[in-house]
């Protein structure tokens, strides 16, 4: 039975224009049960979405359904600007059959459920199968040591030995946050994080150790000793699509990008050795009365298995909900398996929801890019340790400034 909320108009604000068709698809599916419900989808690039949200939420002019990553949502949760989830929604989110603890917590604040987890960004390794075959490699790399061995075997060189196709496109330049994030992903495979939370909820950087050294040394070894990649070489998805690199780590959107731009590219994906960074995104509700009720109904509809499978198949973003049957999609798009079909032991980590996180990443990236360009570091463990200590001290200084530093 359609509840009294049916004769309403609700708006959905999204930070990903490619998701507009998904929300419209969800709205279309609700027509039978809510014939008079009109859903207006307003999707715009993420940075602009965040600006609009900052003004809209504080002035009471925001949409009823708001799509937002947990890291940005926290500031609004702290100020009580999102609605607490109704009992039925909270029970749905807290049910382990629907969401694991990580995603439940990503939609909660102070133990209370506020949002409905929807999709996530997550990384995996992309590799060119033809290049693997030519190099005599039959399996994807399983350990971080393999990554270097494979990169060496996959690098193609000119007569003077200079690399023309990189074995492993590491993130050596570009946007600061991206450089630090990718370094964090690699260091995580060694068991270490850029910042970690203690039991009191405070944070600390503590990576000037064997794991941190292994991560940074791997970059330096590949760039300066083995020369499997250089700072100047083409990098990222475009380089992979143009067959200018054999391996690189990226999110699932690359699969759709390859399908559109390089449909004949011979490639496959695989999970990372230990786990992946994840950027969980949830739907949050603002407003009151019948509109808020309709908004919750919309958020629940978006979480229906059929709609989530449509999302993965048509948009390429990964649903957060557990227990979905991906078999039909994986048959047509096997590259998605590394993102949805991961080992039981696979671990996720996320950027911390703390104010100075962007400053931490930017400053870390500045130190890393300086280190990447210094060949003297490659064979000098003490010098690598000094870089790590200096980076760690700077991060802890930022955390202390914000009163967030753990003992």
């Amino acid at each position, binding site marked *: 039975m359609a509840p009294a909320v049916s004769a309403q108009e609700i708006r959905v604000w999204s930070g990903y224009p490619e998701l507009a068709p998904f929300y419209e698809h969800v709205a279309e599916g609700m027509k039978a049960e809510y014939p008079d419900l009109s859903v207006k989808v307003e*999707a715009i690039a993420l940075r602009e979405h965040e600006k609009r949200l900052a*003004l809209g939420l504080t002035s009471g002019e925001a949409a009823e359904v708001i799509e937002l990553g947990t890291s940005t949502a926290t500031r609004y949760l702290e100020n009580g600007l999102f609605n607490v989830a109704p009992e039925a929604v909270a029970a749905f989110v807290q049910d382990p059959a629907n969401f694991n603890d990580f995603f439940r917590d990503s939609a909660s604040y102070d133990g209370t459920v506020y949002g409905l987890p929807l999709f996530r960004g997550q990384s995996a390794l992309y590799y060119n199968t033809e290049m693997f075959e030519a190099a005599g490699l039959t399996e994807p790399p399983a350990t971080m040591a393999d990554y270097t061995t494979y990169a060496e075997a996959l690098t193609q060189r000119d007569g003077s030995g200079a690399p023309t196709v990189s074995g492993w496109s590491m993130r050596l330049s570009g946007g600061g946050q991206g450089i630090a994030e990718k370094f964090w992903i690699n260091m995580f495979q060694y068991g270490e994080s850029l910042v970690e939370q203690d039991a009191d909820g405070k944070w600390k950087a503590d990576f000037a150790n064997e794991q941190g050294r292994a991560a940074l040394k791997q970059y330096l070894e590949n760039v300066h000793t083995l020369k499997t990649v250089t700072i100047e070489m083409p990098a990222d998805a475009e380089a992979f699509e143009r067959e200018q690199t054999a391996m690189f780590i990226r999110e699932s*959107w690359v699969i759709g990008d390859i399908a559109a731009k390089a449909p004949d590219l011979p490639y496959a994906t695989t999970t990372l050795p230990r786990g992946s960074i994840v950027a969980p995104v949830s739907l949050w509700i603002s407003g009151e009365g019948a509109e808020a009720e309709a908004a919750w109904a919309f958020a629940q509809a978006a979480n229906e298995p059929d709609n989530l499978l449509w999302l993965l198949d048509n948009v390429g973003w990964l649903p957060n909900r557990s227990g979905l049957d991906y078999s039909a999609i994986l048959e047509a798009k096997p590259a998605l398996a590394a993102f949805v079909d991961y080992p039981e032991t696979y671990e996720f980590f996320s950027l911390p929801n703390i104010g100075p996180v962007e400053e931490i990443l930017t400053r870390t990236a500045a130190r890393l890019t300086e280190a990447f360009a210094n060949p003297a570091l490659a064979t000098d463990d003490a010098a690598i340790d000094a870089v790590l200590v200096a980076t760690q001290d700077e991060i802890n200084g930022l955390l202390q400034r914000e009163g967030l530093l753990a003992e």
Partner: protein
Amino acid sequence: MSANRSTQSGRSRRLRKMFVDRGIDLILLVFSLLMLLPLVFLVSNGFKTPQEMLAWPPTIIPADPTIDNFAAVLQDTPLLRWMFNSILFAVLSTLAILATSSIAGYILAKFRYSSLNVIFALVLATAIVPFEVYMIPLYFQAQSMGILNSIWGLLLGYLVMSFGIFLIRQNVIHSIPDELLEAARIDGAGELWIFFRIVLPLLRGALGALGVLAFFQAWTAFAWPMIVATNREAYTIEVGLALFQTGFTVDLGRLSAASALVLIPSISLFVILRRNFVQGVASTGLKE
């Protein structure tokens, strides 16, 4: 003998001058071609398939031209509506700025009250305040007036231009002698008659230049239309173009197609008003 030498020297001077001139022409030609290249690529990319967009080195003339990008842009987005919104916004903003600048500029230039100097200093001072500083209070103002998602909301931040007031004041000082105004007053002309029949016609060039600057200021505005217009139908073209950016990539084919279409009105306006535009740039740079 000496006449012969002098003729030879004159010829060689002319020859050298010709080579220098041709050299300068060549450098300018290469430079202008380089300046035009991004525009050529923009239009060319609009006709490329996603595969060709990835090709390296990039092609200037598409090997397999397609109009899919243009068709998709026109079918999937209300591009014409966004262009209409932008044109309406830019035209109304230009008219408002021309009106406020000409009135204020004339008064500040020709009326002798000491308080006007203070007002002029305040007007100049506002020019150094970035729009972002007062954007948020302005947004709340628009909200309280109930004009979000409307042309009036868009216009709220674009009715007055402090630089425009300055430009007109300087032009009035330099091009309208006090004697002319005094003669009109002696002949019994009222202030409004003087303003409309003497001042405005003499300011035609400056107003044309200011009009072009004001039009392009509104046409290229992004931050304000983006926060004021949350409704897809109310977007301006600059905001609409941002939709071609996805989570991590840019849909370059469709963005190029949309941008190429958007160039049509602005290039047309530039062609029509290019003399005023050049004068406007010269005025901003060369006059005090």
